[in-house]
């Protein structure tokens, strides 16, 4: 219980300072800054002790408590330090300011998110994933394609997509289809490589069994290869959500029609509107995590039988 009291004292110190210095415009005197340092120390030691108590928690919600407390402690400390040293909000905005901005410009950001996520990232993601799975089926079926095409697909994963973005934006135009194309291309190759691995890394015994049942090739794919590939496909689909978001945001750095999270970040960073930049990053992160979670949820529904979930 000692950890908790330290933690509470640390939080109390920081919050008391933030409230005290809420309206001040001067750098806090040395004594107060030392108090903040004491608060940081208390928070650190308290967190370490509390986290140790939760180290073997089985419940995922309980297991998450230390992480949540860490974030909270970091935010409170950042707020206190930024206020104590009077860092100009145009440079590093305080967390409360970011939250207020997030609330203030939510309509604009929602519109940006609609453009970036639903039009660009999602369309590109769906196209890239379906084409990728289709290609992987073909590649796994024909040895020639496996030898001739797959090495290129692996090679493509080491290409920086940012270099692709300006060319595609020029080629397709600055509206959303160009960004969807970038997302589709970045998602496509990992999906091909992973799905291919899933379709081919089947146990030879199972294949022999299928053959002794005189299973046709379609049946072989339906009952053996596809189920075997599902965990691999979902790995690629999860990875793809992040890649699609990055693709859409980076694509917008090279030209957008006045909307989009990447466009907003680029523009506002250029004119020191960092509270809006942070708000946009929060929105992008929230969307990214939610999307990833959605795919993970579908995965658990479809491949709940897989080994990796049995002990969860």
């Amino acid at each position, binding site marked *: 219980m000692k950890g908790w009291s330290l933690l509470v004292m640390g939080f109390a110190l920081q919050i008391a300072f933030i409230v005290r210095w809420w309206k001040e415009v001067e750098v806090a005197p040395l004594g107060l800054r030392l108090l903040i340092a004491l608060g940081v120390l208390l928070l650190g030691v308290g967190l370490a002790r509390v986290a140790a108590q939760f180290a073997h928690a089985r419940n995922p919600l309980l297991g998450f408590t230390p992480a949540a407390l860490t974030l909270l402690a970091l935010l409170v400390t950042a707020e206190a330090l930024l206020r104590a040293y009077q860092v100009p909000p145009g440079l590093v905005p305080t967390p409360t300011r970011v939250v207020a901005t997030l609330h203030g410009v939510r309509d604009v950001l929602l519109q940006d998110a609609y453009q970036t996520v639903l039009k660009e990232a999602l369309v590109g993601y769906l196209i890239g994933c379906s084409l990728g799975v289709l290609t992987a089926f073909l590649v796994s079926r024909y040895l020639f394609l496996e030898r001739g095409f797959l090495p290129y697909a692996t090679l493509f994963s080491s290409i920086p997509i940012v270099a692709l973005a300006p060319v595609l*934006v*020029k080629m397709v135009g600055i509206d959303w289809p160009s960004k969807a194309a970038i997302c589709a291309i970045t998602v496509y190759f990992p999906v091909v490589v992973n799905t291919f691995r899933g379709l081919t890394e089947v146990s030879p015994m199972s294949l022999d069994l299928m053959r002794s049942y005189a299973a046709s090739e379609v049946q072989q794919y339906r009952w053996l290869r596809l189920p075997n590939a599902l965990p691999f496909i979902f790995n690629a689909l999860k990875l793809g959500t992040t890649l699609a978001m990055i693709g859409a945001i*980076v694509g917008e750095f090279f030209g957008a029609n006045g909307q989009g999270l990447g466009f907003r970040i680029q523009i506002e960073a250029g004119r020191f509107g960092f509270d809006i930049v942070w708000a946009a990053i929060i929105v992008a992160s929230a969307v990214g*995590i939610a999307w990833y979670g959605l795919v993970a949820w579908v995965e658990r529904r479809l491949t709940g039988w897989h080994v990796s979930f049995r002990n969860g």
Partner: protein
Amino acid sequence: MRISPNLLPMLVVALVVLALYWPIMYLVNIPVAQRALDTGAALPCQTAFECASQLRSPVLPSPQQLWGGFVSLMFPLDSPNAIPLNAAVTALETLVGLLLATLVGLFFAVGIVASRAFERALLPWIVASQTVPIIAIAPMLVVVLGQYGVQGWIPKAIIAAYIAFFPITIGIAKGLQSPDPLALDLMKTYNAGSWQTYLKLRFPASVPYLFTAFKVAMTAALIGAIVAEISTISFQGIGKMLAENSRASDVVAMWVIMLASAALGIFLVAMVGWLERLLTPWRRAQVAPRPKARVAGREVGA
């Protein structure tokens, strides 16, 4: 040395793509050329077909144009506006970033492996940050670092490090946890301290994982470096060339730079693979003699 069975099919695929490129290029460029002719612009060509391979901003540049652009951007080799010097600068930023990321990643990975409390408090955020478009932070970081006097190639390396940090941390942590429990028990029976266990068992065991992580992190760091170059005033680097030519709408140059940075990415990742073979020869020795399992008449994992 054995010639890879992939070589011939790969060449065929490359030739087919090249052979298809010409007709597709004409197909998409001729309408553009026709429109340019119709407006009566002074073009050095008469028919739309002729013009299609000489457009100022083609949809797809013709191979002649690409070659011309390549020659003019490649030479002289030491020109500040040519690709070699800029690519070297970007590569340097990427490598320094990777080094930084490895140092920080090592610290975090040891923390995660050594202390459950540390893992509980930080790992969820390290994992969550992988599902987040981290690249979005780059433009802001550049400006903020610039305000505090960090300029030139250093902020780009920091951003590259920042982006490469996550895969490396996870990779090292996995590697540190990879030793066989029996081997760990053996260390205990030898009365080895935790420091010795790390030095003699865990760190060597994590090297293969480190290289796998490096391959992912290298591409990520390269992307970070290029984005950082784009989002700030830079005087050197692939990103600066991209931004410049994007503003100038020089489509051919953009294609050439795209191909060059693709080559740079492939080269850097190949370097990691080469280093891996050099530094972990025991892995190849373990893998090589095993006969490959054959599935439906083809090699698994080929």
